[in-house]
């Protein structure tokens, strides 16, 4: 008994130590956001101090921060909605009206996601330049929609396939036509899956840091690009930068925590469930 108890203790301490070490940088940033600029660069780094919301106030007072935040929201949510619009019928047909081609189509969609963005950087940049889509929310939304489409289709497909066949058959025996089957049976049963798919797409879009850095400059820049613009160290603004960063990552952190399980399904294309 004593041995198991001490083993448990070691386990708990080890796990917590690792968790705290891994989380530390984030923790430190959040902490810094509540400091004054002077404290933020103090050596030795201070753990205890008088917290202040000055950093947050200043950041939010900047009109362009709000604009960038809004850009992130618009682009993430917009691309997700568009992707869902196109993906739901596709996934439905693959799950319930399969043809011999279905499997090939699914795998091909998967392969398009594996295209390295940098490989098509040049043409996309030139096309966007010529179409006037550079530094535009529309352009970025379209790119994100296309980037996430394979994952969205895949996740929805696996959720649709999870609906047991007999339940739909029982519905048919009860007299449900296709529309009723979708409305009364399919939608209620797959809504949680559709929601987590949407959340995953939002997370991936929000954090995307290639196209957002290369296709936008001032108007359509989302938060990723805005934060990147502070890459040269200037010392006296870390508290504000921390505040801005904390606000930028907070929603996604929470969303990510909530959708852990479904993320695994989506990120591994169902290979690990």
């Amino acid at each position, binding site marked *: 008994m004593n041995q198991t108890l001490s083993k448990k203790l070691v386990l708990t301490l080890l796990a917590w130590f690792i968790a705290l070490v891994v989380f530390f940088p984030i923790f430190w940033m959040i902490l810094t956001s509540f400091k004054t600029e002077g404290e933020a660069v103090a050596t030795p780094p201070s753990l205890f101090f008088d917290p202040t919301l000055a950093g947050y106030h200043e950041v939010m007072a900047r009109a362009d921060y709000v604009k960038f935040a809004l850009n992130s929201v618009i682009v993430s949510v917009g691309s997700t909605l568009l992707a869902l619009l196109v993906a739901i019928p596709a996934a439905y047909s693959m799950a319930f009206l399969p043809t011999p081609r279905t499997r090939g189509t699914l795998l091909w969609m998967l392969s398009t996601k594996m295209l390295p963005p940098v490989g098509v950087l040049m043409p996309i940049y030139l096309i966007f330049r010529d179409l006037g889509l550079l530094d535009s929310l529309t352009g970025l939304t379209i790119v994100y929609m296309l980037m996430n489409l394979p994952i969205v289709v895949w996740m929805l497909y696996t959720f649709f396939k999870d609906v047991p066949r007999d*339940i739909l*058959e*029982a519905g*048919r*025996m*009860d007299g449900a036509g296709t529309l009723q089957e979708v409305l009364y049976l399919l939608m*209620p049963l797959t809504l949680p899956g559709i929601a987590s798919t949407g959340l995953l797409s939002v997370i991936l879009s929000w954090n995307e840091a290639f196209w957002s850095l290369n296709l936008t400059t001032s108007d359509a820049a989302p938060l990723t690009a805005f934060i990147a613009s502070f890459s040269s160290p200037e010392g006296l603004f870390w508290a504000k930068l921390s505040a801005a960063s904390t606000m930028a990552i907070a929603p996604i952190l929470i969303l990510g925590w909530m959708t852990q399980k479904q993320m695994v399904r989506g990120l591994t294309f169902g290979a690990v469930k």
Partner: protein
Amino acid sequence: MATLELNNIVKEFGDTQVIKGVDLEVKDREFVVFVGPSGCGKSTLLRMIAGLESASSGDIKVDGQRINEVGPAERGLAMVFQSYALYPHMTVEDNMGFSLRLAGVPKAERRQKVLEAARILQLENLLDRKPKALSGGQRQRVAIGRAIVRNPSIFLFDEPLSNLDAALRVQMRIELARLHDELDATMIYVTHDQIEAMTMADKIVVLQGGVVEQVGSPMELYHHPRNRFVAGFIGSPKMNFTEVEVLDANAEGVSVRLPGGSECRVPVDGGDCRPGDTLTLGIRPEHLTLDDQGPLSGKIVVIERLGGVTSLYLDADGDEWILVADGDVSHRVHDAVRFGFEPGRAHLFAEDGLALASLERHPLVNVERKENRASTSGDDH
């Protein structure tokens, strides 16, 4: 009236023929059981009747009308699925009333019909629960209730008891029999369990490899199996089989030499049998009796005592025999015993597996389970 007729039904999946020409007739208010080993096609047959699979060729007729092209909901049938297939996001009441809701029946009337069915199945105080809050037996009753509410002409059951534990299964068997009596409806029931078939059916259809092996009442199948497969499938423990040599055949039956040397005349129609032919003798374990002067002998290998009966597993020079004896038998493992049987209880099967016809039919074969309230009864075959 709810009669079913299947004419030469064939079902192909790609290149394989799963159902190879099935003819069947189900009378009004009959309880018919499709039984057979896994893969025999019984579930496929049921699904074709339901409309969930289409027949590759042949006619399905309900009350004389051909319904091959009619959709599952319009056929007026209801099905109870093996997994119950309850709608997980709806309450018991909504589950049972779903078909009515789809048909546009007003709420008050729906509730009334659901309550009626709930009363029959004792589900009244479960109406507000969701399926995940119900036990296996309760879910099954909800599935049956859903079917009852539709007031179908024929009930279809797809192995409904196979997901229940043994005790519950016995209980539900009795409830289903009671239900059949109370609702007075035609029921078609699929199972792989021959005990369920024997205890519940008015008529059993034994299937193997997509072909109907025999159709008949439980007693008919038990006493007069048409071939070796049916003989071995029906009855538990399984029938004993051994090879015997024909000595002669006359109007009294066929005389054969048993293992161990003795002779026995079995009262069956010898047909073309010649002395020297090899036949298979079949005798059920419950028809073997321990007899010190018996023609057969063996050593006890395993004893199973159930209290009321005792099963003895015997080894006779490599041949295996099962004997079901009275519960008070006092033998022990490794004992040598002698046993025999009444010739009238034995069966003989030719090389092609077909049984030689009995000279006398068993008295219980034509007794119906209950008074059939429909107009004509009479011979099923």
